[in-house]
């Protein structure tokens, strides 16, 4: 497992080359991405913006190894990931990527601490270390006093912090955030973005997918998509 900021300076954390993605809708094939290339370096805070239907979510799914491209190449930490098996992709998602979603996507039946421990369980980390690292991650996002709470007992901002702790706990090199402030009020959203900036400062790459121009402006660099192409 890679330690924070361990990727060599000349290898981009994310490298997307001429990637296309088509969906089949009955007889027709609908292109969602029509040849997109981009790269993100370690410690970068990158925004992918664009209106709905521009393909930004599809791009995030591909970078997050939740889906595979129709054509083109995709490298994470220099490793080719297009065309890997489901089992292998699961390992990459677990080790290299942390996800943050608009609706937080915490598991409702278990406590905040157990939620944060879950990725480590899939990473086959021992129970004791799981707990230590999860507590550490929750402390990092300022939720040390909410370990035993259920997600439903937390505010929106706290839930998103818990989700960020869960994304950080496996020490991934890439954090993918899909509209992370979309369900939060402006002030709380700012605080979450501030947290992302701090995470970047530690050498991690954060890619935020958003349609909110203000969020885009906050990030260091913006990639704007329209109709499946980088504008």
């Amino acid at each position, binding site marked *: 497992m890679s330690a924070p900021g361990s990727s060599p300076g000349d290898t981009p954390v994310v490298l997307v080359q001429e990637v296309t993605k088509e969906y089949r809708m009955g007889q027709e094939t609908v292109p969602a991405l029509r040849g997109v290339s981009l790269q993100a370096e370690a410690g970068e805070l990158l925004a992918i913006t664009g209106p709905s239907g521009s393909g930004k979510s599809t791009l995030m*799914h591909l970078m*997050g190894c*939740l*889906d595979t491209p129709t054509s083109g190449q995709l490298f994470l930490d220099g490793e080719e990931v297009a065309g890997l098996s*489901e*089992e292998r992709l*699961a*390992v990459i*998602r*677990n*080790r290299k990527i942390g*996800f943050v*979603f608009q609706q937080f*996507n915490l*598991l409702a*039946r*278990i406590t905040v601490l157990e939620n944060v421990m*879950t*990725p480590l*369980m*899939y*990473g*086959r980390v021992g129970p004791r270390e799981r707990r230590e690292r999860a507590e550490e991650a929750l402390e990092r996002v300022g939720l040390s006093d909410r370990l035993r709470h259920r997600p439903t007992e937390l505010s929106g901002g706290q839930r998103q912090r818990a989700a960020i702790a*869960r994304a950080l706990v*496996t020490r991934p090199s890439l954090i993918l955030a899909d509209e992370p402030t979309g369900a939060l009020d402006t002030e709380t959203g700012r605080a979450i973005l501030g947290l992302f900036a701090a995470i970047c400062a530690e050498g991690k790459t954060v890619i935020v997918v958003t349609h909110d121009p203000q969020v885009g402006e906050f990030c260091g660099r913006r990639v704007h998509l329209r109709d499946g192409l980088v504008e």
Partner: protein
Amino acid sequence: MFWENIRMALREFGANRLRTFLSLLGIVIGIGSVIAITTLGQSATASVQKQVAQGGLETIMVFPGRDAAKEVRRLFTVGLGERLKSEVPGIREVTPVAQANYYLKHGRDTYENASVLGVQASFPGIYSYQSAEGSFLSAEDEQKRRSVVVLGAEVASALFPAGDALDQYVRIYRKGVARSFKVVGVMKEKTGTMGMDFDGSAFIPFETYSARLERLENVQRYAMGTATGADVLKVAEKVNEFFTRLTGNEDSFRVMSPSTIAEMFTNVTKTLNLFLTGVAAISLLVGGIGIMNIMLVSVAERTKEIGIRKALGASPKAIRGQFLTEAVTLTLVGGLAGMALGTALSFLATALLKWSFAPQAASYALAVACSSAVGIFFGLYPAARAARLQPVEALSFE
């Protein structure tokens, strides 16, 4: 991850208690039947063996058939008993038996519904029945048609609470008329068997019975003791042949021995077992389908959760493991409830039937194996379906 899976499963059940309970009924009944079958089967076998051992494996009884014609019935004479003894090898002792219930009285002490048996001197030898006081009826009592009686233990203590029965007189009432009999012996206690209630009986000479209590046209039954070491089933077969030759009709008499009864009982138990095995198999099948159904519902409802877990790095294998563990945990919970139910039922049944309660460790192992097998078999498809879900589609499920 195994323990986490079990913990997650239990948490799911806790959140859906009613649904979990209902989906488990089939398994509970199925496993309950498995336990009941094996426990009752064992208990039945054990108690039959015990009864047979008590009754002495060596006795055989012959009755005239219910539908036997009068001419045939007349063949059942006292003399025939002697012929049986001399003509059928393996028979050691024979006695004709007459039996009816009477009201017995001594002074103010009474015993209602005593079995009064008219038998010959050979009777105690056939049943290994021992005297406590005095002696059993003699051949002379029989020849001279003496009015003497030997009392079973319970009858003796009811009529003679002070224990001074010997040489006293007991009245046997028939249609309101008392007949007086002198007590010549009291027997030791003996557990009843094969329709014979020794302790609640009184014994008088067979000829006296016919002369003083009830005029007998024919012998109601013969009791025979077989020679030590003889194969009772074979001797019973010979007795059967003897009577077939005598009456020319196999339906005009019945031959019974503890061995044949045990055999009959084993057959009944086998049939019962077959039936209960069928019930168990069907319940487990139905229960398994119930489990599959509830697991499919669970997978559908938790599509989003599966998507989240996949995003966090759960492999298809891990997801399959989670849902398979959930199915097996579910059936094991059902299995445990079934084991409790089956144990309780068979305990009650054995208590009612006065059988010995003999739960078998092996049957509980079988129950655990059955419930796990059902969980694995019927959980496999829903689990595979969960594992196959596409992460993107699962995540976008609302």
